[in-house]
């Protein structure tokens, strides 16, 4: 392992998310065979809006996946110790961190405004004569290369031009390759390519300019806000998907069995979800998270690095969110199953002596898939927002893990000071807004294509 220079780290959430990717790939690969499903998806993708929203979502997912490949760097052997043993950094790094080229390593002392050269707060510094004065200190990682601070904006423009040229070159490469493969396609790929080019240019620009300035300033701890916002992507995306995935099996199993078997099964399931939905959700979630936090604090031995602790809490939150939010989907599926099990084909299957499991798998489940799919995409954005709310009241993500909720939580005090620190909130808001907007637009299109009540009229 020594020659690798790093040691891979597989956090629980990483394992789950990669498993999820594999399962989804298989699922969609198999769906490909069903012409009806294919037709509906092609309806989603033949609109430009669908393509754009999908590209944005895939970018977020891609960033989240890159940020889920974790490793610990090898440290150089300490001087004077002669051993073959390799020591690894206690800090976990992700592939994304590497790609952002050290953006997260450029700390300042505390707040600084976007593109500022000096700190936002005064501190005691020595002037040229060696006297202590109280003034705004120069930043450590901004504008070091400038001979004259007044050239700043000209320099920014020059850097941007260079970055843009690189960005355009990179996007030409990426889009060009796709163009070669997909130019005959009936789908409006050009919409996706435009967005891809935009995203690539933006990222190249951000990484390049970040070497010289803090594009979105720094937060209270002096960390780069742009970097923090990007790190929030993994948290948001994973929370949205993992909680939905915890919720789905519960909702589907209970809903389908209640609607199909009726009788006492139905009674039990209904009792469960009426009880659950009569407990205030936030209270239940807060209580569960706090309970788990106590467990983590009491068993520090289970977690070898700090990141694992934060990760455990994150997974717990996903499970808790999933476990508390299945009732509405369950109700929908139960109703749909009740309806379907009265239809001719299920009756005919009974008359053919088809077993319960086969009826459920062949006749009922495929016909409630559209509800599951619609709920999945609709709930996704709601869960991302829920994370922000939970972090805001202090029961959400561990503060050591970048998350938009924590950033918004911090903005509470930042906005109330004069002059206000507006950039952390802006950063979190911008990234979250883009994801939730794309998810909502996409879910609208998916619903239009899959919901028989909406699309039913088309065939008649």
């Amino acid at each position, binding site marked *: 392992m020594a020659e690798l220079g790093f040691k891979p780290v597989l956090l629980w959430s990483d394992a789950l998310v990669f498993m999820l990717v594999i399962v989804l790939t298989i699922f969609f690969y198999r769906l490909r065979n*069903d*012409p*009806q499903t294919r037709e509906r998806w092609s309806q989603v993708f033949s609109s430009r809006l669908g393509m754009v929203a999908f590209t944005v979502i895939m970018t977020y997912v891609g960033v989240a996946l890159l940020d889920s490949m974790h490793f610990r760097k090898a440290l150089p052997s300490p001087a004077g110790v002669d051993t073959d043993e390799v020591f690894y950094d206690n800090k976990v790094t992700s592939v994304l961190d590497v790609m952002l080229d050290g953006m997260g390593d450029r700390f300042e002392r505390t707040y600084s405004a976007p593109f500022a050269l000096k700190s936002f707060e005064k501190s005691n510094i020595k002037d040229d004569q060696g006297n202590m004065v109280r003034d705004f200190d120069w930043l450590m990682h901004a504008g070091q290369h400038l001979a004259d601070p007044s050239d700043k904006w000209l320099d920014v423009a020059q850097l941007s031009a260079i970055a843009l040229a690189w960005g355009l070159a990179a996007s030409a490469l990426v889009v060009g390759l796709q163009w070669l493969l997909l130019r005959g396609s009936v789908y409006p790929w050009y919409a996706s390519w435009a967005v891809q080019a935009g995203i690539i240019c933006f990222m190249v620009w951000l990484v390049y300019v970040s070497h010289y300035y803090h594009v979105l300033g720094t937060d209270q701890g002096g960390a780069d806000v742009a970097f923090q916002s990007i790190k929030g992507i993994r948290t948001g995306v994973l929370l949205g998907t993992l909680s939905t995935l915890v919720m789905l099996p519960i909702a589907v199993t209970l809903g389908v069995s209640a609607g199909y078997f009726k009788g006492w099964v139905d009674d039990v399931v209904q009792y469960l979800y009426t009880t659950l939905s009569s407990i205030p959700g936030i209270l239940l979630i807060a209580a569960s998270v706090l309970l788990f936090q106590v467990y983590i604090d009491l068993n520090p031995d289970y977690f070898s690095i700090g990141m694992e602790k934060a990760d455990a809490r994150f997974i717990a939150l996903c499970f808790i969110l999933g476990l508390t939010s299945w009732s509405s989907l369950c109700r929908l599926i139960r109703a749909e199953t009740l309806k379907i099990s009265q*239809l*001719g*084909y299920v*009756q*005919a*299957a*009974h*008359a*053919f*002596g*088809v*077993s319960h499991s*086969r009826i459920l798998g*062949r*006749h009922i489940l*495929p*016909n409630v898939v559209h509800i599951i799919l619609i709920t999945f995409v609709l709930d996704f954005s709601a869960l991302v927002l829920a994370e922000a709310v939970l972090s805001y009241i202090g029961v959400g993500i561990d503060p050591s893990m970048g998350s938009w909720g924590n950033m918004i939580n911090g903005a509470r005090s930042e906005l109330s000071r004069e002059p206000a620190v507006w950039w952390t909130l802006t950063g979190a808001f911008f990234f979250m807004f883009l994801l939730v907007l794309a998810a909502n637009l996409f879910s609208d299109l998916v619903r239009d294509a899959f919901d028989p009540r909406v699309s039913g009229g088309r*065939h008649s």
Partner: protein
Amino acid sequence: MTVNTDIRLQVRDLKVELVETGEQILKGISLELRAGKIFALVGESGSGKSVTSLAAMRLLPDALQITSGAVVVDGQDLFDLPEAKMQDVRGRRVAMIFQNAMSALNPVQTVGQQVAETLRLHTPLRGDKLRQRVVQLFTEVGIPDPDSRFSFFPHQLSGGQQQRIMIAMALACEPDILIADEPTTALDVTVQEQVLKLIRDLTRSRQLAVLLITHDMGVVRNTADEVAVMYRGEIIEREGVDEFFHNPKQEYSRRLIDALPDLTKFQSMAVEEPLLQLQDVKVYFPIRKGVLQRVVDYTRAVDGVSLSIGRGETYALVGESGSGKSTLGRAILNLEQISGGQIHFKGDAIGALARREMLPYRKLIQVIFQNPFSSMNPRLTVGEIIAEGMVSLGMGLSEQEQQDRIGQLLDRVQLRREYSQRYPHEFSGGQLQRIAIARALAVEPELIICDEPTSALDVSIRAEVLGLLQELQREFGVSYLFITHDLSIVPSLAHHVGVMQAGKLVEQGSAEQILTAPRHPYTQALLNSVPRLDPA
């Protein structure tokens, strides 16, 4: 005003097309409605009957547009009027009634209020006078005890009475033209006859000009003065009603007329070898109340039915909706638990078998449902649908044999073999019902329960499906329990007939006996309401 030839509404060369594709839906329709006369527009679903009436009233959905033609009322072309004036024409001059009265009435308002509302909009009547007028209208449309019915909610009335309320509402503003779009299709036959009689009487007494849209030739025969047959957006034949039924000129019209029952020919009796015997079968559904869900009473869906079906024989179970005939069919299939009595199939008691024990009999008793669209899983191909029974009942066929068998079955029901790769939504109702028949035949059953297999189909297709069923009976010697509300298909099909009312079998016997000499008053009422070609 010369009453009988007075033209109230004239449609001239009306053309309508689909906005999106430019496909012609109506290809130049012309007709005239005369005072005191009923003009019937007949045709199968999709022939453009309803589009004609909606276009005339300028109520077309956005996807359709009128490209040419004129609708003239009192010398005024309706297509030239502004929308505000048009509102006045609908309602005041021209009234419309639709198929489904329940969905046209507001469920949270009393029926009296709803009729009064229309009057308030168009007349100066208020207060007591308004109420009196409504009660008077209720009396006119034959609602019993109209004064107290004023404060009833729609769900408290029967389907027939709801349709009467709709008619009262339509007549409230004294229109002189009435457009009735399938006004009786959702009603039971006995009720249907009463509503048609009401429309007929009102036409005479009020000198209405009526456009009656229907797919039912029996309705036309008994009600209309003039008939126009629509086929694919064109009127292919137009004639006085007597002339039309005696000398149809078009082949298509003849097929529509032939779908009417002929009460002179019956099935000859088959050999009596009992296949299925029911003795005093009861199906009760418990009514539960309270927190503990205690059973307080039972709904007696099937209340002591005994009958016997022979091998190769067709037994028609006739009754109106809610009489328990479908529940009985489900009980025979063991999809519903019986609460009492015995079901014997080939001498074995099958009434109380568990799911697993029932399996050997599943192969022998099959079912065809009413709605072909909901009886196929939309996510399976036709081949998979037909194969389902063969797979689950373990016919022990190899993949190749199975494919061959599916091909043969499709051949047998006159569909093409390559259809097995297609999905249900690519087929029409008649084709789907053939697939349903193929699915039932796949496991070589001895008894097929046909639950209203043709009531969702158009008349000309209905005849084809019934013909196919009979052919298959001769070929395979299969028996049918034919559940239907439509007495008119019975004579050509059934050997035995049983009439059900409120869960009880009120009369049974050979088809000839029931149809020519019914003894029970309910059977007589049912029979009277069946439209006939030649009421002697």
